[in-house]
C-alpha cells in the first residue's frame, strides 16, 4: 500500500514536522497563535497572486506571507492599535481580498478544498525537494537565532542589554514562519496548519526540562502525528490535514491521561 504518492507525502510531512516542532514551541512560548493564523489566512491571497502571475503556489504563498510579516512588524511599531486588532485586519483582509480575486477567475483550477484541508495526492517531487531543502535551511536559521530569540521570549530588555539584537531574531523568525506555513499548506491545509504548530509542543511540555528538549520532543510528536494521520487518511480516505490534526490531538490527550507521570515544573 506504500504507493509512490504516499511515500512522498509521508517524507514531506516528516520534513515539515522537523521544523514545525521547534517553531511551534516559540509560537506557544511567545503566544503567537493568532499571528500564525494570520499568516495562514494570508495564504489564500498568495494563491490568488500566484495564479494571476503564474507562479508556483508555494512561492506565491511564501511571498505574501512574508509581506504580511513585514507589514505586521512595521504596523506594531507605528500604529497605536492593539496587536490582535492589527492581526485581525491583516488576517481577514488578506483572506477576503484573496477570495474576491479568485472569484474573477471562475475557470481557474484552484482546488479550494485541497488548499483548506490539505491533499496528500498533491505532493510532487519538486514539493518534496522544496520542503526538505527549505526545512534544512529553516532549522539552520532557527539554530542561528535560537539564543537571541529565546532570551527575547523571556525578556526583550535583557536581550537588548546583553547585545543580542532580539529585533533581528524576531524578524527572521517571522519570515521563517511564513516559509514553514507556505510549505505546510499542501499537507495540512490553511485551516489547520496552526494546530500542527501548537499541539505537539503542548503535548510534550510536561515532559521537557529545557526549551531544547521541548523543541526536540515537539518535532518527534509532530512526526508521529504526520505518519499516523497520513496512514489514516490513506486507509479511510479522509482528508490528510484533519487526519493529522486528529492524530496529534489523540497524542496530546494520551499525554494528559498519565497523571502520575513526573511533571516538569508548571503545567
Amino acid at each position, binding site marked *: 500500500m506504500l504507493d509512490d504518492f504516499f511515500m512522498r507525502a509521508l517524507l514531506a510531512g516528516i520534513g515539515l514536522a522537523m521544523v514545525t516542532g521547534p517553531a511551534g514551541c516559540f509560537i*506557544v*512560548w*511567545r*503566544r503567537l497563535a493568532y499571528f500564525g493564523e494570520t499568516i495562514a489566512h494570508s495564504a489564500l491571497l498568495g494563491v490568488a497572486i500566484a495564479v494571476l502571475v503564474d507562479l508556483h503556489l508555494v512561492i506565491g504563498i511564501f511571498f505574501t506571507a512574508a509581506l504580511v510579516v513585514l507589514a505586521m512588524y512595521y504596523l506594531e511599531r507605528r500604529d497605536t492599535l492593539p496587536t490582535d486588532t492589527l492581526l485581525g485586519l491583516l488576517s481577514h483582509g488578506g483572506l477576503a481580498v484573496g477570495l474576491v480575486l479568485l472569484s474573477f477567475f471562475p475557470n481557474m483550477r484552484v482546488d479550494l478544498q485541497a488548499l483548506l484541508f490539505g491533499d496528500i495526492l498533491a505532493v510532487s517531487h519538486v514539493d518534496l525537494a522544496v520542503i526538505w531543502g527549505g526545512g534544512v535551511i529553516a532549522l539552520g536559521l532557527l539554530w542561528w537565532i535560537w*539564543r537571541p530569540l*529565546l*532570551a527575547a*521570549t*523571556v*525578556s526583550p*530588555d*535583557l*536581550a*537588548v*542589554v*546583553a547585545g*543580542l539584537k532580539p529585533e533581528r531574531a524576531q524578524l527572521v523568525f517571522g519570515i521563517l514562519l511564513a516559509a514553514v506555513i507556505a510549505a505546510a499548506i499542501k499537507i495540512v491545509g490553511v485551516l489547520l496548519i496552526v494546530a500542527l504548530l501548537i499541539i505537539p*509542543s*503542548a503535548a510534550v*511540555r510536561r515532559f*521537557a*526540562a*529545557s*526549551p531544547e*528538549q*521541548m523543541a526536540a520532543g515537539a518535532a518527534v510528536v509532530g512526526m508521529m502525528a504526520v505518519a499516523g494521520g497520513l496512514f489514516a487518511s490513506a486507509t479511510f480516505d479522509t482528508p490528510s490535514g484533519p487526519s493529522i490534526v486528529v492524530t496529534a490531538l489523540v497524542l496530546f490527550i494520551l499525554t494528559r491521561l498519565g497523571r502520575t507521570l513526573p511533571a*516538569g*515544573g*508548571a*503545567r
Partner: protein
Amino acid sequence: MLVKATDMGVRRGERWIIRHVELSVDRGQLIYLIGANGAGKSTCAKAILGLLDIDEGSIDRTPALEVGYVPQRLALNPTLPLTVRRLITLTGRFPGTRIESALASVGLHRLGDPPVTTLSGGEFQRLLLARALLHRPDLLVLDEPAQGVDMAGAGVLLDLIQDIRRDLQCGVLLISHDLQAAMSTGDDVVALVPHEHDERPFGLDDPYAGAARRAAGQA
C-alpha cells in the same frame, strides 16, 4: 566615570515622564534612584541602559561598557521549561566554573538545578542577579530588586549588592523605594519627583524629594 546623564528628559506625547535629570555613576559607587510611584524611575533606568531614546539632554557611556541589568519583574510564561542553570545562561554561553561562582556569590549554588517556577520570590531575584553577574558587568542596574521580597530577604539582597560592588569594583545604580537605606548606604541619591513638569506642579511636598534635598543641604 562609567555613565553620565546630563539634563536627560523623556517625553511621551506632550507629557514629560522625566526631565532635567542629572545622574552619573562611577566605578565602585552605589547610586540610588528613588522616588514615588510614577516618578519615572524605571524610565530613567531604561534610558541609562539604552532601552529607550531620550528626547532631551545626553547620556555618555564609557566605550565597551558591560552592563548587567536586573529588571523589576520577569513574567515567565509557564509553558517555557527553564531550570536555574538554563535561565542564567539565556543571554550567553559561559564556562561551568563561572556559572558556579556566580550562583555561589548569590547563595544559590547548593540548590541543584530545579525548575525556576519552584523558586521563592527572593531566590528568583537572586537568580536574576547571578545572571547579570555572569556577564562581569562594569555597571549593574537593578530595578527595585527587593519588591515582593520580605524584609529579611530585602536585607540579604542589599548586603549582596554591597559585596558584589566591593568584589567586582563595579558601579551600581539601584532603584528603590527605601529612602532610609538610600541615605545610609548610597554614595549619592537621585530623587525623582512625579509630575514635576506638569503645568500645575503638585510634587513639591514629595517626601522623597524633600528628604533628599534636606540631606543634600546637610552634606
